[in-house]
Every structure is written in C-alpha cells, then in structure tokens.
C-alpha cells in the first residue's frame, strides 16, 4: 500500500481551478519533489492531502486513511509543514514543540524524550528557550520541521522546506531530509531545481493545476528534446563564416551566438541526434581555418526541462 495517495484531486475556487486532476502515489523510502511555477497549485494540492482543505472532487489518503472522512487517523500518521512554516510567534521553541507534541497525544515524558533527540538532530539547542518571533528565518524553518517530526510520522508533507534558507542551511536541511528518507514517504514542494536533483527520487511537475510529468530526475533530463548543446568559442568577432559552415552540416538544427566578448564569440550549436559529434565539428572548423579556442558539451539542466515542460503548458 502506498503511504500517500492522491486520486483525481480537483480544487476549484470560484471560477479558478487551482488543482485539476492530480493523481499519484508515494511509497516508503521515496522522496517526491513537487515542482512548478508559483501559483501552479503545489501548495493547494498539499493542503488537500494534509486535510486542511476539502477537495472539490477526488480523494487523498495517508496510509490508507482518507484525509477527509478519517481525518484523525490520517493526521496521526502525517507530519505537515505548511507554506511559510507558520508557528505561534509568542511562544518559546520549547513551549511550542511541547504543545504540538501534546496535541499529537504524546505524554509529557514521551514528548521530552522525543524532543531531546530531535532538538539535537535539527540543531535547535541554542534557541530552545527563545521566543519564536525572535528567531532567524533559518531557525524558524527548523522549528517548522521539528513540529512535523515530533510524533515520528511515516508520512511527511513539506511545503517549501528550504525556502528562505542560506546555502549552508539548505544543505543541512537536505541532509536531514535524506537521513530520514529511508523510513518515510516524503513529499516536498520546491521551485529550486537543484534541490530535486539533490534529494528527490521522483519529480512531479505541475503547472496550472495539472500534472505534466512524473518521473525520476534523470529520466526527465533524458526525455528532454535537444537536451544538450555544443558550446564553441571561436577567436573572432565575426562569426558569420563559422555559422554558415556549421549550419550547413547535416544534423544541425540550430546555431546561434550566445555571447561576444573581447573579440571572441561563443556559439551554441544544437544537434538533436548528437551528430555531428564535437570532434567532427572541430575537424570541420579546423579545415576551414577557423580557430576554435574552446569547445564543450553543455548538458541540459533540470531548469531547461522545467522551462520546456511548463512553457508547453502555457501555450
């Protein structure tokens, strides 16, 4: 049984369809990245799965319990970090986490044991007795993660867990997610694509409420058309002859000037079938007396994939 399951979730706000038929399942040890432009419906979908919002139609399940008809059972098994990591700013970290633990039914003693372990792991020791409104963004986010983990749930839904963190904090957060991932089913939303490559076993791309892709990050990269391009730097400010020679080669779909600096020109060459190869092209240019200063294969990034897929949805 999948730990998280969404079946044909639809959510309409008036005439706006925020979520439009999202279905997926997440098993233990999977980390699924929800990707999409702002306003794509990521947060709305997460709110529905967590049971905070009712779907217009469709069902969401946490370990087989319906988020809406069996909310208590479902929520016991769910750790949820809402968008923006809200917390009661007038409470201390200790009081806040104690409150959440109590609401999850942990006894004082259980809560203390569990929190002692968590605080160490998440790095909240130094701010333990501080009020939440006095904390930096990084610490606030960690408090948000801590409250989601307090009852050691099997399912974690984290809405932008690294938003607003500095690079070191992002790294730590990813380490933390990876360290707990083997025992849990995790769904995170993000618009930072490197994060998906770093922590996710699967990526679901959403735009305008629709699911556009559901695959491993590497499969997404492989599927993208014209995934890679050849970057060629030539020692001339006038690349016209080079462009003419390259573009007449069979297999080349596009050549354009990427940049021109100090009498050097960088060209980007797209060859969908990877023919001619870089070596062949270098040979051809050499025979035509065009000095190639540098040449490398520019790999497609998830950024490109993301742009390609989501722009497709716009048009």
């Amino acid at each position: 049984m999948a730990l998280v399951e969404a079946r044909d979730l639809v959510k309409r706000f008036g005439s706006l369809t925020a979520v439009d038929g999202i279905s997926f399942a997440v098993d233990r040890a999977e980390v699924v990245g929800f990707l999409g432009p702002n306003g794509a419906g990521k947060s709305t979908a997460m709110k529905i799965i967590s049971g905070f919002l009712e779907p217009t139609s469709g069902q969401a399940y946490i370990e087989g319990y319906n988020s809406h008809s069996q909310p208590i059972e479902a929520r016991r098994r769910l750790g949820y970090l809402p968008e923006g990591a809200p917390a009661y700013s007038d409470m201390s970290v200790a009081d806040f986490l104690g409150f959440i633990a109590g609401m999850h039914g942990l006894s004082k003693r259980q809560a203390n044991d569990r929190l002692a372990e968590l605080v160490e792991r998440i790095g909240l020791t130094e701010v333990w007795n501080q009020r939440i409104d006095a904390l930096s963004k990084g610490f606030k986010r960690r408090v948000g993660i801590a409250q989601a983990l307090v009852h050691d749930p099997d399912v974690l839904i984290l809405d932008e867990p690294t938003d607003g963190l500095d690079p070191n904090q992002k790294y730590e957060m990813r380490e933390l997610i990876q360290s707990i991932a083997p025992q849990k089913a995790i769904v995170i939303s993000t618009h930072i694509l490197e994060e998906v490559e770093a922590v996710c076993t699967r990526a679901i791309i959403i735009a305008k409420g629709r699911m556009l892709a559901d695959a491993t990050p590497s499969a997404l990269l492989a599927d993208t058309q014209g995934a890679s391009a050849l970057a060629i730097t030539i020692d001339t400010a006038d690349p016209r002859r080079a462009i003419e020679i390259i573009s007449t080669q069979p297999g080349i779909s596009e050549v354009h000037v990427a940049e021109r600096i100090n009498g050097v020109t960088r060209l980007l060459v797209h060859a969908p079938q990877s023919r001619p190869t870089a070596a062949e092209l270098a040979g051809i240019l050499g025979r035509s007396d065009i000095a190639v200063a540098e040449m490398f294969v520019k790999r497609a990034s998830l950024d490109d994939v993301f742009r390609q897929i989501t722009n497709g949805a716009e048009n």
Partner: protein
Amino acid sequence: MRPTLLVFRREFAAYFATPVAAVFLIVFLALAAGLTFFMSGFFDRGQADLSGFFFWHPWLFLVLMPAIAMRLWAEERRSGTIELLMTLPVQPWQIVLGKWLAAWAFAALALLLTTPLWITVNVLGSPDNGVILASYIGSWLMAGSFLALAAAVSALSKSQVLAFIGATAVSFLFVMAGFDLVLAAVRSWAPPVIIEAVRSMSFLGNFQRITDGVLELPSIVFFVSLIVFCLWLNVRAIDVKKAA
C-alpha cells in the same frame, strides 16, 4: 479533554505574552469603577448594593469582549498557524472549546479584579450578597455569550479589526433586542411569536432579571444555550472555510 486543555493553556498564556492583557484589564477596571462612582453615583445613592456597577456590564462587554475574542481565530488565519492547528489529530470542537474557555477565563479574571468593590459595600453596609453573587455569575455568563459570539465571527475573518467590528455589531443587536430599535425592524413582518422570541433574547433584559434577583433560571438557561449555539456555529464556520 487533553487537547482542549492544551489549547486553553496556550491561548490563556497568549493573552499575557504581550502588554495587551494588562492594558485591557486596566481599561476595564477604570471604566467599571469610573462609571459606577461617577455615572451611577455609587456614594450618593446611599444604598449598599452593586446594581450601579452591574448596570454598565452589558455596555462595557459590548466593546471589551469582542476585543478579547477577536484574535482567537483571525490571528491564526493571518499568521497561517490555522493550517498547523487544523491538521493536528484532534476534533475541531476540542480546539473551539479550548479557545473560548481561555477567553472566558480571562473575563473571569477581569471580574475577579472588581471584587474589592464587593468588599467595599460589605464594609459600608449590609448588601444582599446572594443577589451580588448571582449578578457576578450572570455577568460572567453574559461575558461568555459575548465571547462565543465574537469567536464565531472571528473564525470567518483573517482581520482582527473586521472580527471586532462584526462581533460588536452582532452583539449590539443582542444587547438591544428588547428595544424598539431592533423590534421595529421585526415587527413589520413577523408574527407576535417571533417578536416575543427576539425580545426574549435581549442581553439587557436577561441580565437585568439576574441582577434584580428574580427569574434567574430562564436567563441563565438563555445565556448557556446561546454559548453552546455560538460554539457550534464556530465549528461550522471552520468547516465552511475548509470547503471554500
């Protein structure tokens, strides 16, 4: 019951997390004392009772109780913590009850701080302490009604200001329900039964019956039922927002 208790404790402590609670208590005490001594002529009347004090309660509460309750839900919505709260494995009514109890306990504290007045009348004369006790209980129940109403309104908004204004407006109708101001609006279309029903829901009328020391039970039942009904409305308001 534990979730209710936890919410109660959190909310009650939240009142004292800022100076707002102290300011509120001072304003309440100053107004209550000022109105009792200067407007009602506490000393000039030459009577050892607190009727001049309780007389002002509906009017004081009309403004002060929405001020206590406006944050209960509106602030959760504004800060986003409502999402946290409503995805915890507890029943919504447990949270609704805990929040209201915290506000009600705060109102109790405000009333307790006026007991020097009670002591004063006992020093000056021999008042009917049974009536005063009943009046205190009646006042507390009426405060609870105001608070339950305001909490339900607060659940509909993420602005504390709107919650305050909305709650005060609705409360005003209840306070004035026995007056022609409200009754005239009903009289034009409703049968006598409805008019009588509206009249019987007057906060002023019900509270007066308690402070006069007559017909206490029906008025107590009225306030308690209104509290229960408003708490139910509060739960419904949260449900409705969830589906919106």
